[in-house]
């Protein structure tokens, strides 16, 4: 409760005395849905460097990764963001899942331990965000309690949300289903891997920044 009040007063002060610049944008969502892939597209486009490694093995990102002062230009306007890429949030971690990807048992156990700590770190960072982009795999069922819990917590903290339906290049991709689960939020469909609809994403990002 105290944290929420602290955050609320900080937001009021920001809106009164500070410009909407250097906004902290958090990338949240389940593991392996493309948070780092999208953060990489943005960072590569505007700083020339990627933020982190991606792989097909879930929980590749196990520590919060940040990129300061990412200056994005869209239709003559410029905004500076701090990009915060977080480990995917899950309710279970099983090292045996990693074995299926050819990871050795010892390495899989280490990965599982780091992943649990990464989830705790992601949750702790929620209070520090100015706005959040939730990245979901549009080819999977969006009715997951983790997704609903993340959105619920952002609403409780009055943090503006943009939902990115990633992987629209996949056959099973269904943006309408994502929109039906989150009817009160802007949903933008993209493919971070194939760099599809990235312009539309930047438009939505600037709209999101206006809500802070």
């Amino acid at each position, binding site marked *: 409760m105290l944290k929420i009040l602290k955050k609320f007063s900080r937001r009021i002060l920001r809106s009164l005395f500070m410009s909407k610049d250097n906004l902290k944008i958090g990338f949240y969502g389940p593991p392996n849905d493309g948070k780092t892939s999208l953060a990489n597209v943005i960072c590569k486009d505007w700083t020339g460097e990627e933020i982190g490694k991606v792989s097909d093995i879930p929980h590749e990102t196990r520590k919060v990764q940040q990129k300061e002062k990412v200056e994005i230009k869209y239709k003559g306007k410029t905004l500076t963001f701090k990009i915060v890429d977080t480990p995917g*949030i*899950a*309710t*279970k*971690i*099983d090292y045996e899942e990693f074995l299926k990807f050819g990871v050795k048992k010892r390495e899989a156990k280490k990965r*599982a*331990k780091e992943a*649990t*700590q990464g*989830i*705790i770190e992601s*949750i702790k960072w*929620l209070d520090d965000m100015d706005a959040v982009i939730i990245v979901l795999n549009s080819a999977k*069922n969006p*009715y*997951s*309690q*983790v997704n*609903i*819990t*993340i959105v*619920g*917590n952002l*609403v*409780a903290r009055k943090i503006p949300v943009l939902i990115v339906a990633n992987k629209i290049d996949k056959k099973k991709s269904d943006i309408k289903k994502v929109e039906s689960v989150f*009817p009160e939020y802007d949903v933008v469909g993209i493919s971070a891997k194939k760099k599809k609809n990235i312009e539309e994403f930047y438009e939505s990002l600037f709209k999101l920044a206006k809500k802070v």
Partner: protein
Amino acid sequence: MVKRKILRKSPQKNVKGLSLQIIPYSEIRGLNISERVKKLLKIILGNKVVILQGRLRPEEEIRLIEDTMAMVDHIKSFRGIELAVIEPDAGNNSMMFKLRRGIAKSLIGDNNAMTVIGPASVVKDIRRDPRKLEVLLG
């Protein structure tokens, strides 16, 4: 009317060891966030599936995930939880419905919903759709 569908991969084998504990909302009403999460995790660590009348608040759900991860890190055989909430008329987004539900929630709490939480080793997956719930046992 809430439809529930419980699927079992190999029924005879799984039902044998499945233990459910139903918790009425009145049992957690007077507890604070730490006590609620602690109570639920204690039951789950006993390899039971909890069926809770009502739903946890978002901050309680995220705390449950946080504490679950801390447990996974410390308890060797514990891999985490499966969690799902089912609300009757979840698909109804009309303003009138939301207003009615908001008033009811503020008066009697959100105990019209049902929360299912189980250990990941027992519950393989909970597939949630607005009007049905599929619990896949491991």
